[in-house]
């Protein structure tokens, strides 16, 4: 008596194929909505991931006190690197190399061979110590830059808005009044370095006619030893330094982009809301046209709840199928796509969280979208329903 007799599962599945055009259109609509959700979540997750993987807890950035969080504006005396090596305890030291990396970090207008107008890019002058601290950096093509040469990150082309061929190994670019030859390309596991151009520090200093550095990155033996570098910066008041753990630095940048992330999640909500209304509209059309069929089901003994469950099943099947199609499209065409932003570029990331949010939203669209029209259709009396044309 209490047990609900459900309609056969195959009934709902067959119904979808009985009206192929309508089902296909609904599927396309749901797929589009879920794909939009995937894209927005991929932007948020890509930006988060880019900043999250850029920091190493064993690396401390020492830069100018007056620069705020903008290292491009920092200028610190060149003797800072030597002082750090000599004065700070627990600086990592292996095979005769002290893990202290003086760097010049600037924004510059880069001109590629095929582009008439230069585009704003990020250049980092480094020494051979830099890859010891930035362990994600890996040369994937060509070699480490020699004099007058540069190595370009995987996302530099996206940042400059040019084709990757223009930055191929062996090609040349112009910035700061000099021509630089591309000696190789590097990747950095999605870190912010991927949108940077690296060159030899003395070359960049010479081109810019600068003797100072923007920052000194210090590798310490363990994350707790970062406090020793912070203490050094506070003691050296005359140098006007500040020291920040690299992870904290990128966390502060993440905080900076908090409004963008919030906006992204609001867009996800709005797109999902629009999707629910679109789904409702389609399902109303689909269900209202089947009033006679639904009344017949009631007449042969199926309870209203069973019929509602069957209609929700149809909606859920369509939306889940749409979600999976959208996920496949997102993984193939959206995942890894480079996007430019103020600090450089980052790759869109369709990860497990994105899949969960996208598919969850899709499934919810199907269930929520099918519920109200199903309930409404079953408010008709059986006799009226059977007479309906």
């Amino acid at each position: 008596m209490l047990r609900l007799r459900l309609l056969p599962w195959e009934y709902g599945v067959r119904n979808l194929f009985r009206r192929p055009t309508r089902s296909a259109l609904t599927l396309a609509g749901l797929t589009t909505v879920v794909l939009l959700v995937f894209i927005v979540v991929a932007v948020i997750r890509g930006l988060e991931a880019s900043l999250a993987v850029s920091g190493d807890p064993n690396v401390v950035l020492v830069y100018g006190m007056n620069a705020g969080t903008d290292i491009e504006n920092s200028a610190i005396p060149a003797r800072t690197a030597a002082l750090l090596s000599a004065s700070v305890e627990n600086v990592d030291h292996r095979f005769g190399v002290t893990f202290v990396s003086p760097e010049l970090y600037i924004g510059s207008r880069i001109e590629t061979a095929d582009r008439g107008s230069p585009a704003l890019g990020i250049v980092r002058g480094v020494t051979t110590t830099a890859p010891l601290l930035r362990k994600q950096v890996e040369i994937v093509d060509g070699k480490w830059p020699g004099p007058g040469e540069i190595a370009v990150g995987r996302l530099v082309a996206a940042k400059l808005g040019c084709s990757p061929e223009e930055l191929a190994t062996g090609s040349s670019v112009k910035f700061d009044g000099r021509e630089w030859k591309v000696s190789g390309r590097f990747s950095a596991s999605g870190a912010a370095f991927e949108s940077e151009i690296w060159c030899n520090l003395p070359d960049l200093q010479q081109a810019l006619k600068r003797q100072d550095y923007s920052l000194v990155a210090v590798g310490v033996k363990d994350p707790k030893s970062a406090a020793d570098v912070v203490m050094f910066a506070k003691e050296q008041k005359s140098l006007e330094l500040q020291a920040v753990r690299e992870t904290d630095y990128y966390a502060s940048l993440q905080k900076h982009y908090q409004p963008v992330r919030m906006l992204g999640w609001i867009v996800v909500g709005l797109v999902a809301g629009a999707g629910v209304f679109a789904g409702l509209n389609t399902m109303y059309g689909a269900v209202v046209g089947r009033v006679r069929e639904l009344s017949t089901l009631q007449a042969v003994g199926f309870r209203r709840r069973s019929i509602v469950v069957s209609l929700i099943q149809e909606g859920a099947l369509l939306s889940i199928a749409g979600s999976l199609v959208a996920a496949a499209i997102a993984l193939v065409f959206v995942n890894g796509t480079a996007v430019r932003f103020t600090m450089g570029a980052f790759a869109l990331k369709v990860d497990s969280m994105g899949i969960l949010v996208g598919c969850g939203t899709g499934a919810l669209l199907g269930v929520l979208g099918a519920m109200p029209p199903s309930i409404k259709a079953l408010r008709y009396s059986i006799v009226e329903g059977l007479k309906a044309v």
Partner: protein
Amino acid sequence: MSLRETIAAIVVAAGLFATGCGTSSTDAAASSESGANIDGRKYLLSHEPEGAVGVIRARQMAGDDDELVVVGRIGGGVAPWIEGRAAFVLVDPSSGITADEACDEECNCHSDELADATAVIKFVDAQGKVLAVDARRLLGVKELEMIVVKGRAKRDESGNLSVLASGIYVRR
């Protein structure tokens, strides 16, 4: 397609997507602070030491390794503390540059003044190493508190002053 087959297909597809794109992260377990068992009471003085001078005066007169009693306020920026170390920045009592001011280390409105009016106070062990425990925890001190510190001056070539402290008196 039966119900069982449909559910199985959905689960397999979702599983493939989830495992294909997943990234895992593990948080390193925080280890206990190495200096957690240090008794801070031995650094707290019951009486205020005599002959205290302000930070500005101390910077002018103290030579390297001189015994010194210095008075000042814990401040000189938004973050006078060195996380995880028994060390902090002390600012001259006459100076208006304290932690509650809008000016922090990200602006240069007082940078020259700041350099002349501050010193780093470090509580060290017998080997002269800074104690690996946060000063707030070790000594129970707070920002803006007026304190008197007894210790040895440490000067560098640029004239920066640090005090290797052996005792602290908090004026309350």
